[in-house]
């Protein structure tokens, strides 16, 4: 094993500052889950394909399994835990609940954050734009129809 020094990281997650001492080879996903105990972010494929580890960095969806934690210091990281205001769900989360867009729930954090980022950029996306936006998030339960309906309901509100 090559010698590797631990470094002090300062991460801004969900508008809070966290100081972590960690090895540089750890991904953002690992630090979020194992060090900060923010286990809402899920590990699926671990190679950037499934989208279950999606978090927002400066408002844009990225794969936390392919992102080094050390590389996102100084950036604003948003995980699923950062969307709700205490017990009050964010409208995107509410829409997912109301439209039964959640079954097993494993894809939901990534799916919701991706939808949130889409709506922030484009408040009234078309169905095609919604499908394109969530195309990098794999759901094995719903067949996507309910998820698209949930996002569409918000898009219509935005119009």
């Amino acid at each position, binding site marked *: 094993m090559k010698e590797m020094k631990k470094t002090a990281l300062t991460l801004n997650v969900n508008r809070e500052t966290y100081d972590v001492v960690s090895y540089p080879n750890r991904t953002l996903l690992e630090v979020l889950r194992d060090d900060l105990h923010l286990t809402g972010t899920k590990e699926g494929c671990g190679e*950037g394909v499934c989208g279950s580890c999606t978090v927002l*960095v400066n408002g844009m969806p*990225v794969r936390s399994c392919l*992102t*080094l934690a*050390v590389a996102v210091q100084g950036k604003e990281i948003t995980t699923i835990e950062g969307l709700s205001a205490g017990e009050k769900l964010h409208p995107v989360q509410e829409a997912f609940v109301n439209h039964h867009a959640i079954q097993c729930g494993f894809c939901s954090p990534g799916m919701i954050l991706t939808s949130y980022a889409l709506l922030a950029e484009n408040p009234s996306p078309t169905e095609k734009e919604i499908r394109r936006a969530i195309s990098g998030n794999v759901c094995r339960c719903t067949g996507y129809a309910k998820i698209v309906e949930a996002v569409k309901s918000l898009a219509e509100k935005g119009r």
Partner: protein
Amino acid sequence: MPEKALSRHREKQNNNLEEHMRLPPFQYLEPTNAEEALSIISSHKETVKIMAGGTDLVNRMKLRLIEPAFVMNIGKLRNLDGIDIGDTETVIGANTRLREVAGAPLVKKRFRAIAEAAFQVASSAITNMATVGGNILQNTRCLYYDQSGLVLNGLERCHKRGGNVCLAVKGSARCFSVYQGDMAPAFIAFDARCVLEKKGSTRTVSLPELFTGNGAAPLAIGADELLTKIIIPNPEGLYGSAYRKLRLRGSTDYPLASAAAFVSVAKDRKVTLCRLVIGAAGTAPKVIDRASPDADLEVIAQKAYELAEGVDNLLLPGAYRKKMVSVLARRAIKAAMDGIKEGV
């Protein structure tokens, strides 16, 4: 196997699997400007790997295909990104995110094939991270190579792993791994050049010169060099371009066959140049240049078919991929011709 031994065996296997999802150890370097980056690669050479978006490099490290002593993150170097459309040429910084290239209205209008290639790389969570330079400098891929140690340990050491056999083409003296970058074919269709900088000197090479044609060592860039920008001459007159790609999943996949086309025509609509570049058809992108009047669609598609290497080393059969290269060649040329507009 007795139950206890079996459970120990399973535990060991699980640990191995767990280990393979993690990154190997390395020292992390983060230069604050390009000069510092050049100085680092000049002193560390082969021991350092350059990371921009990380979408390709991190996966290769997870698979233990590379275990660099140092990883240098250039992703935050702001003077290496951006799109600058000038009077005679357009400069795209190597650090420009693919999403920016795909969405830039002027790139879509003037360099359609380049915007289409960037858009088709993957969904936004990948293209928000991945950069133009990283996509161009992808290593070649092969089903018998891009695997974790769990798979590779059971295989003979191939050319790409420093051995002397090819597992895809039995008895072959060379490596048939496939270059699956999306951006390079589109840039080559526009006759782009790229700037390679190293400490104390800079060279500009045409994009095809970046590729050696040798699958085992496919990129002609020194360990002390940094790709900083891509320069595209602004085409004049009437022209169109397009990029077409075959893949299994629309949201995220390397091309299994691809074609980028650039077509320019005279005022009377006679074709003056038809340049086709095929991708995922060998160890490097391949160019087919045909100036009118013999720029015949079928002739070019046939030539694309002949040039494409159809080897069974990706997810779809080689013979099918070879046929699809010529199908995509036709489609790309047709789309380029349909989209012909006045340039600049």
